């Protein structure tokens, strides 16, 4: 069975075949033997070739979360059909002239210092993002005009959520 796996910009092409009680996997052309326990919880043990690995895992919204040596990996796994579909969709419009500023961390918007239409200088604070009790000023990445402000004071934002656009 063929799959495409994507882990934070790293792309892998997998071919998986069961062989007795293990899996034969070709990963980007490399041959690997995988053995996996059947433990019925989110922490399991695997052998990747000779390397023994305790790992944690979870699957939500079709995305696998792998926990290896204390590190979290989000892995998208697609079969060939879904992969080609995703590629087409993923090819969005070319980067525009505007600069969209996203939340670097999840947090709470405590202050919005400017409003849409204001002229901003590079490094001028636009709003304050409070995360885990530390206040962070989020500044304009370049000179321009604030095209829009997407958030309001008191709003909780996720990492990567759009905050404002400088045009």
């Amino acid at each position, binding site marked *: *069975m063929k*799959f495409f*796996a*994507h*882990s*934070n910009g790293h792309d*892998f092409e*997998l071919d*998986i075949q*069961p062989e*007795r*009680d*293990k*899996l034969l*996997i070709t*990963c*980007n052309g490399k041959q690997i033997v*995988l*053995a*996996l*326990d*059947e433990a019925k919880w*989110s*922490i399991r043990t*695997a*052998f*990747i070739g000779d390397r*023994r*690995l305790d*790992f*944690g*895992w*979870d*699957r939500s919204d079709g995305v*696998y*979360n*792998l*926990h*290896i*040596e*204390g*590190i*979290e*990996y989000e*892995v998208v*796994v697609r079969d060939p059909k879904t992969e080609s579909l995703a590629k087409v969709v993923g090819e969005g419009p070319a980067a525009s002239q505007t600069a969209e500023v996203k939340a*670097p*961390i*999840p*947090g709470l918007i*405590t202050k919005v210092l400017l409003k849409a239409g204001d002229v901003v200088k590079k490094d001028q604070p636009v709003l304050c993002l409070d*995360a*885990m*009790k*530390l*206040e962070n*000023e989020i500044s304009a990445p370049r000179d321009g005009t604030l095209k829009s402000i997407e958030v309001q004071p*008191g709003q*909780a934002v996720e*990492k990567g959520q759009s905050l404002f656009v400088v045009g």
Partner: protein
Amino acid sequence: MFKKVLIANRGEIALRVIRACRELGIRTVAVYSEADRWSNYLSYADEAYCIGPAPARESYLKIDTILDVARRSGAQAIHPGYGFLSENADFSHACKQAKIKFIGPSAATMRAVGNKIAARQTAQKLGLPVVPGISGQVDEKQVIDFGKQHGYPLLLKAAGGGGGKGLRVVREEKDAAKALREASSEAGHAFGNSTVFVEKYISKPRHVEIQVFGDRQGNVIHLGERECSVQRRHQKLVEESPSVAVDDRLREKMGETAKKIVKSVGYENAGTCEFLLDEKGSFYFLEVNSRLQVEHPVTEMITGLDLVQMQIAVAVGDRLPLKQDEVRQRGHAIETRICAEDPFSGFAPATGEVAAVRFPAGPFVRVDSDLRIRSQVTVFYDSLVAKLIVWAEDRPTAVDRMLRSLREFKVVGVQTTIPFQIQLFQNRKFRAGKIHTHFVDQEFDFKDVKEEHHEEAAILAGALEFLRREQMTPKYASPRPISPWKMAFRDDL
């Protein structure tokens, strides 16, 4: 003894206080914000009350609401934990007015020492060494003038709090304005007091603090030091006792200094005197933390005492259960703070649901944590999700035990700082005890090992997806159960 105590806090410290109370036969009242509605600590309390929305200002910092819960539930005392209202003199005062015992120092004591500027002045009056600086609200010009006089870098500090909030290092004159603005805003935000002061920045200092305890009868003892030099951006990461830089003589000297300061203000209950220790072994008094510290378990492991139970006993009016010469320290204890932060992305806060958690255990290992399976880690509060504390007869053994425990510790679903700590406790300089407060920021080279495992993550995710699909619609004839141990562990024996 109190019959019922309210804990005006959340998370691991609420659980810690509940445990201490239960052992004393005291009923416990927990409070929670809407974000903590299903938090673990609530299930350990005898009662639990909602005190408002998620933001701390609307819940855990609401003095009136908390006092109202205390009155209605019949709590005779309030334990504030650390953070939130723990060093708020107005709260201590309001408790007194409401005839509810505040488990901590009086408002007057807090005002005398809790504020960094007042504490400095107290120490100066007693002739004790302090770091050069300006005690009192400073404006931009004063900061710049002070910098011209004493040279950079400078340190801006909030008068009202601790824990790295409202703290800024100013390395150049041009950064002064922004740093002052941020520190002031953060301080106001966190402590309701935006006063910021400035002082000289000592290079490569160790952060060493002395745990003190006073009772109503005027007895004061110290319980030795904790070294908290391993910090990242002024946030403590590792605390240990004893300090490799403190011998018996220095311990006694620092201990007596700390006792002098708190005695001068009639200090009751637990407190901590923070010092900077420079490379020559000179120490400078910094401030008094008039509350239980996050890192109090380190002292507990060394002394065999339960500091929270001592706080409660002293609050009831009991004498301290031991005299200075009865304090016995044994072995070496280390604590490290496991935070929901991504060390591979500049320690950005990590949030989400915990899919699984496996705590380390075994001899002399302690985990203080409110995590459990399906816990939610949100942006509203501190990123500390667990304190891992180990004890051993000596420091090298304790460090090995810490490493073993860190490797056992799994929090699946939310990135934590554990990979960072695993590297830290292997670091040669750390193991040699060559640490200072800038060690992590300036000397420790954190290796980004995340890149090493993308392939493994992809392979495992692919295998899991394969097995999931096979289970739903089997495509391979008579699939044998995957019994890898058989193969991998060579049970052809």
